[in-house]
C-alpha cells in the first residue's frame, strides 16, 4: 500500500496474453495491420491506433516532436473542426486520449460498441488529413512546455531519472526524454510537426486494435471502408537507430535537491529486450526482477534489506522487456533512517552477489510461476489492457505469436536461465548508479536530511 519513489514493479504485469482464439488479425492492402480482441461481457469497445514511430525515431535537434504531434492530432481535419474530435467522442458517451513513448505513439477511444463506426471513421480521417492552423500549434506548444514543467521540472525524481537515462544511453536516442529537451521544445515549429506527420502517419506504419464487444467480420468491413482507401507513406525507411557502444566504464551520478526528503540509490543495467522469436533471455530477466523485487515482503531484496538487515525502507527491482532496442534492468533502494547511501548500495550489491552465486530459493521460484499463471486469468478481466499489450508488442518488433507464446516461455524459465541472465546483465561496468540526496547531504551520509 505504500507509495514508492519509483514506478511499481512492472515485472509480473508483463506476463500473459489473451486466450488464443479470441484474437484475430489481418492486414489491409495498404499495409495496415488489424488486430481484433473479442470480449462480449459488456457492450463496450476500445479502438486503438498505434504508430510504429516514437521519440527514439526523431531526428537530432527536434526532440519532443513525436509527442508534440500527438497533441496536435486533436486540432482537426477538413471535416472535423479543431478540438471537436474529443467533443464528438464525448457527445457519444465515449472518452479518448493519446500517449507517446520512445517506440510508439498511440491513440484510443472507449465507447459503446454500436458507436465503433463513428470513431473508426474519425481516426482514419486524421491519419492522413490533419490540418494545422497558425494559432493552434503555437498555443499547443505552450501546453507541452507546461506539461514538461509539471511532469519533469517540478519533480526532482523525474529530473534525476531523465539525467540518468541520458547517461545510460550515450548514443542511442533512448537517452533523450520523450517530452523533449526544453530548449529544443521551445524551437519546434508547425513545419517540424507536419514533416513528422507526413512521414509516419500512414497505414503501412500503423497497427489498428479493436477490442471488446465486436465480431472480426464487422471490424474487417469497417476497416476496409474507412482505413482501406488511405495511401501508404513512401518515406518510411528501415527502423534502425544508432546503437550503444560497448560500455567499458561504470557510470555514477549524484543529484541534490532541497525538495528531496527521502534519499535513495538507483542502479540501471543495459539489458537485452524481447526479440521476435527470441524471448528466452527477456523471460529470464522478467523472472529475475520478480524474484528480486516483485513482492514488497518476500522478494529477495525486500527480505534481506527490509526484514533481515533492516537497512532499507523499500527495495525495488524492475524490468520491462517490451522495447524495440536494448532496455534497462533497474534496481533501487531507499535506506532506513540513519543508513548511508553507501551502506545501502553495499548491502544491495551483497544481495546481488549472493543471488548470482546461489540462485533463487526453490519455493520462491515456484510461487512466482504460480503468480504468473494466475496473472493470465486476472488479465482477461481488462480487455483494454490486453489491447495495450498487443499494441506495445506489435510496435516494438514483436508478433502476435510472440505475445501468445510469452506466458509459456516465462513458465519454462529455469534457475539456470535466470543465473545465466543475471551473470550477463548484472555487471556494474555496464550500469549507471545514482544517488538521490537532499540539499546539504554529503555523499557519505544521510544524517543531514532533516
Amino acid at each position: 500500500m505504500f507509495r514508492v519513489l519509483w514506478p511499481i514493479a512492472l515485472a509480473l504485469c508483463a506476463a500473459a496474453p489473451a486466450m488464443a482464439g479470441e484474437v484475430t488479425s489481418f492486414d489491409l492492402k495498404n499495409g495496415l495491420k488489424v488486430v481484433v480482441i473479442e470480449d462480449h461481457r459488456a457492450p463496450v469497445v476500445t479502438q486503438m491506433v498505434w504508430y510504429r514511430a516514437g521519440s527514439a525515431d526523431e531526428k537530432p535537434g527536434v526532440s519532443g516532436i513525436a509527442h508534440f504531434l500527438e497533441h496536435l492530432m486533436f486540432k482537426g481535419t477538413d471535416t472535423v473542426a479543431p478540438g471537436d474530435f474529443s467533443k464528438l467522442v464525448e457527445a457519444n458517451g465515449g472518452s479518448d486520449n493519446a500517449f507517446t513513448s520512445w517506440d510508439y505513439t498511440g491513440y484510443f477511444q472507449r465507447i459503446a460498441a454500436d458507436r465503433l463506426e463513428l470513431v473508426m471513421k474519425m481516426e482514419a480521417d486524421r491519419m492522413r488529413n490533419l490540418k494545422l492552423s497558425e494559432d493552434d500549434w503555437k498555443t499547443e506548444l505552450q501546453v507541452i512546455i507546461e506539461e514538461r514543467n509539471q511532469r519533469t521540472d517540478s519533480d526532482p525524481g523525474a529530473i534525476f531519472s531523465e539525467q540518468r537515462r541520458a547517461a545510460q544511453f550515450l548514443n542511442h536516442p533512448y537517452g533523450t526524454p520523450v517530452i523533449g529537451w526544453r530548449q529544443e521544445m521551445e524551437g519546434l515549429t508547425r513545419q517540424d510537426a507536419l514533416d513528422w506527420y507526413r512521414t509516419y502517419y500512414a497505414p503501412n506504419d500503423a497497427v489498428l486494435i479493436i477490442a471488446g464487444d465486436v465480431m472480426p467480420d464487422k471490424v474487417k468491413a469497417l476497416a476496409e471502408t474507412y482505413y482501406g482507401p488511405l495511401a501508404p507513406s513512401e518515406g518510411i525507411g528501415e527502423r534502425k537507430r544508432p546503437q550503444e557502444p560497448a560500455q567499458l566504464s561504470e557510470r555514477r551520478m549524484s543529484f541534490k535537491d532541497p525538495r528531496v526528503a527521502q534519499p535513495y540509490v538507483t542502479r540501471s543495467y543495459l539489458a537485452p529486450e524481447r526479440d521476435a522469436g527470441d524471448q528466452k533471455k527477456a523471460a529470464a530477466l522478467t523472472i529475475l526482477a520478480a524474484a528480486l523485487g516483485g513482492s514488497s515482503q518476500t522478494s529477495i531484496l525486500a527480505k534481506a534489506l527490509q526484514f533481515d538487515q533492516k537497512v532499507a525502507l523499500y527495495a525495488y527491482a524492475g524490468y520491462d522487456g517490451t522495447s524495440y532496442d536494448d532496455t534497462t534492468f533497474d534496481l533501487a533502494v531507499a535506506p532506513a533512517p540513519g543508513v548511508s547511501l553507501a551502506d545501502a548500495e553495499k548491502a544491495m550489491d551483497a544481495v546481488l552477489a549472493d543471488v548470482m552465486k546461489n540462485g533463487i530459493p526453490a519455493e520462491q521460484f515456484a510461487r512466482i510461476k504460480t503468480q504468473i499463471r494466475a496473472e493470465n486469468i486476472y488479465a482477461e478481466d481488462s480487455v483494454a489492457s490486453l489491447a495495450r499489450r498487443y499494441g506495445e508488442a506489435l510496435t516494438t518488433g514483436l508478433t502476435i505469436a510472440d505475445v501468445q507464446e510469452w506466458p509459456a516461455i516465462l513458465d519454462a524459465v529455469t534457475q539456470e536461465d535466470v543465473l545465466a541472465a543475471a551473470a550477463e546483465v548484472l555487471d556494474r561496468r555496464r550500469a549507471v548508479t545514482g544517488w538521490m540526496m537532499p540539499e546539504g547531504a554529503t555523499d557519505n551520509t544521510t544524517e543531514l536530511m532533516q
Partner: protein
Amino acid sequence: MIRVIFATAFAVVAALPAQAAVQIQELTSPGGIRAWLVEEHSLPFTALEIRFEGGTSLDAPGKRGATLLMTSLLEEGAGKMTSQDFATAREALAADLSFDAGDDAVTISAQMLTENRDQVVALLKSALTEPRFDQDAIDRVRAQIESIIRQDETDPSAIAGRTFDYLAFGDHPYGSSKYGTLESLAGLTRDDLVAAKAATMSRDRISVAAVGDIDAATLGKIIDDLLGSLPAKGAAMPPHAMLGLTGGVTVSDFDSPQSVVNFGQAGIRRDDPDFFAAYVLNHVLGGDGFSARLMDEVREKRGLTYGIGSYLVPVNLAETWQGSFSSANEKVAEAIAVTRKVWADVAANGVTEKELEAAKTYLTGSYPLRFDGNGRIADILVGMMAEGLPASYVNDRNSYVEAVTLDDVKRVAKRLMTPDALRFVVVGKPVGLETTN
C-alpha cells in the same frame, strides 16, 4: 434465508441502445450481513470488496495516523503467521489482497481464483480477525509512513492539498493528513492499533460486494465466516465538518518553476435534490475530457496549463467543490484570473443548451462503460451500498441525469456558485500573487 432481488442494469438514453444486463442480487447472509452479488462465471475468479464506513476520521484524539497504520499492518502477520509467512501464503495462492484506509472508510479488496478460494478466504479471515501487530512490523511500517510524511513536506502537490484541507476543515480530521504527523505517529502503541481496529472494523458499518465466479449461497457462507466474529458496534462517527473556506488567495512559498494550485468553495450533499443538476453543471464547467469550459479557456485557448479540472466532493461529513491545475510561475496569476472569470460567468449565466445536451449525452453514455471488469463493478457496487443507494440505481441513474433541465442548471449555478468565495491555494513562486485574507 437469502433474499434475492434482481435488478437489471441500465437501459440507457434514447441515443444509445439498451445495454447488456449486470444482474445485481441483493442478499442477506444467514448471519444477517447484507451483500450485493453479480455472478460472472466466464472467468474462474472472484473480486470481493469490503468497506467499513468511518475510516481515518475515527482516529482517536492525539492518535492521528492510527487507523492507517493499523490497516497497513493487517497484511503484516496474523494468527500463527508472521509477516513473511502471510505474504508467502498469499503469493502461493496467487491471490490479490489489499487493505487501505481513507477519510471515510477502511477498504479491503480481494481477487481470488476459484480453485483455491477457501484457502484465500481463510487467509483473509485471519488478517481481519487476528492480526498480530508484531512490534517489529509496527516499527518497519511506521518508518515507511514517516518517509511518506517527510516526502509530503517537500512535495508541492501534497503541500497544496494539505493547506487547502486545513483552511477548509481546520481541526476536524478532514483538515489533516490521514498519515498523521511525525509526532503523533511516534506516540502510537500496539494498544492504539488494537483500539483503532475495534473502532473502525465492526459489523454495524459494513458494505460487501462480490463479482465473479461465485453463487449467492457460497458468498453468504463466506461473508459470515469472514465477518461474523467482528465486534457488533464500532466507535461513534465524528460530527459533520464545518467549512472554514473564505474567498481569496493563500500563497505557500516553494522553489519550483511551476505553481501548483488547488481551489474550491462549498459544495452540495449527495442526497440533495439538486445534486444531479450540480453534477451536470460541474461537467460543463470542469469535467473530464477536453470540452469543459475551464479546459477550453485555460488550456486550449491560452496554453496556460497542461490540465485543469473541477469536481464535486461530497464525502460523508462535508461537501466541497474543488479544482486544481499547475501553471508556470509567470502565468499562474492569469490562469487564476481566467478561472475566476469562468466561474463568475457560469454562476451568472448558467450554460448553453448545447453544452447541457453534450454533457448529458456524455454522462449517460459513459456510465455503462464503467462496468467493465469484475473488480471495477464490485467497487462501484460497494460504493453504492455505502451511499445508501438501492440496487435499482444502476437502472435509474441515467434518468436522473436526463431529467436535468437548462433552468435547473441555471438555478443551481446561482444557488451554489460563489465566485467571490473561491479560495485559491498556490504553492510555488507565483509572480504577482500574494496571500489575502
